[in-house]
């Protein structure tokens, strides 16, 4: 499931929205989110305008609407929970509707951004915004090797499953620890090899 999530972001989609410069999309998204979070609920004009803008962008992006809404739904359990609690509490101000609306709009913005902009371009935008290089490099390497590690963990899981003949609750915890530990060891060894490869091509 995670694989197609990440894969879809770099799918062969193309649209006017995809082609917009990443920095512009990033700053627009951030403005929308900041505004939606801070603006009082009574300023209906803001919310209407934002929803209109997002709908237009979603349409122009040519991404299937059911896809975007499905993503939205998947991310909502925490939102539902807190909204529910809030709705049941009369003592705090701010209606549950406002809460749900704000969260929903921001969620949708991020989903749209993630699906129309490749991560690499977001990183370049961050770099030009002078985010510290160490953090950007960490993000880049993380993104690059996410699949690799997920693949490794999947292979380990399959190998384990092939030798598991019974289901034992207690044993599972122990295996979990071993798998997690193994993953770190492999990540650490790979990090050393990457460093060697960087040095081999002149990294100072």
């Amino acid at each position, binding site marked *: 499931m*995670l694989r197609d999530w990440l894969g879809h*972001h770099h799918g062969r989609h193309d649209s006017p929205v995809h082609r917009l410069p990443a920095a512009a999309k990033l700053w627009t*998204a*951030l403005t929308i*989110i*900041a505004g*939606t*979070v*801070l603006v009082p609920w009574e300023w209906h004009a803001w919310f209407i305008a934002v929803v209109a803008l997002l709908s237009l962008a979603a349409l122009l992006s040519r991404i299937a609407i059911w896809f975007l809404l499905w993503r939205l739904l998947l*991310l909502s359990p*925490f*939102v539902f929970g*807190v909204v529910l*609690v809030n709705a049941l*509490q009369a003592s*705090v101000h*701010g209606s549950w509707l406002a809460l749900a609306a*704000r*969260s929903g*709009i*921001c*969620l949708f913005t*991020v*989903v749209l*951004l993630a699906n129309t902009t490749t991560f690499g371009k977001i990183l370049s935008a961050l770099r030009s915004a002078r985010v510290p290089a*160490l*953090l950007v*490099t*960490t*993000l*880049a*390497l*993380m993104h690059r*090797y*996410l699949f*690799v*590690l*997920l693949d*490794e*963990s999947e292979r380990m*899981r399959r190998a384990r499953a092939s030798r598991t003949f019974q289901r034992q609750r207690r044993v*599972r*915890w*122990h*295996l*979990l*620890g*071993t798998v*997690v*530990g193994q*993953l*770190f*060891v492999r*990540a*650490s060894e*790979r*990090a050393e090899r*990457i*460093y060697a490869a*960087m040095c081999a091509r002149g990294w100072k």
Partner: protein
Amino acid sequence: MHIPDGFLDGKTAATAAALSAVGVVLALRQVRRELPPRRMPLLGLSAAFLFAAQMVNFPVAGGTSGHLVGGVLVAALLGPSAAIIVLAAVLIVQCFLFADGGVSALGANLFNMGMLGAGSGYLVYRLVSSRLRGLRGQVTGVAFGGWIATVLASIGCAGELAWSHTITWAVAFPMMAGVHMVIGIGEGLISALAFVAIARTRPEIVAERTPASGGSLPGGVLRYGLLVALGLAVFVAPFACPWPDGLESVAAKLGFEGRGASAIVHAPVPDYRLPGIHSAAGATALAGALGTVVVFGLALLLGRILVRKPVRESTKDPSC
């Protein structure tokens, strides 16, 4: 525990973001100073590792696994500063690529899980492992630290939600703390198991970060401690502290009562003045303290089980 957008109001989000920013700047400086160049790619790889490790848990532990943070494990292996950067990277990717955690709440989430959580967990780890020597002490430290980290992070989360008037403290605190006291057990357990597995297959990774004898905490750790304390003061203390009562009794003794004593401390949740809640708060505190002691005992037990012969060299675990 990832707070979405819209749940925190402006002041809370901004305060948390400011605290986080300070923490990240400190962490970056520390890492640039301390981490040898050949370890730099390890930051990115550890972030990918954390992410993958969180995925590994999903099918096994059901609802609880989604909250595994792994911050204390990374802190024990790479140091608290590196752990903060790694967690920041994980949270940023989760936020922007998966909309898991709001953009405006990024500061708060990082503060909760990174500084409050992993920071305090690391402090606990250092304290425990300096008192109990050897691998056993480290394992106990990781286990207990992982639990403390989870619980504290959830309390910070509750405080932030309450300060934003999204949910009241009276509901948020028991809900978050209660649930995470259970989740934290999983976090501590998995962190400890993983730590032991790493110590057995690649002991040099663990040895690099083993605290030198003396047990004194380096200056950087104290700075994080300060940040943690500040955050607790801002997000938790106003709700959890019985100050209103304390101040009132002082005011009564000094004859200030009635001179608008209620204006001295503006309690965000008026329920605090009720004697019923006061004793309930006391009961909660007692339960919390008991729970902590029990979990520490469990952590000690775990250390004993996992590290049977503290003197022996590392041996391959036969059951895997």
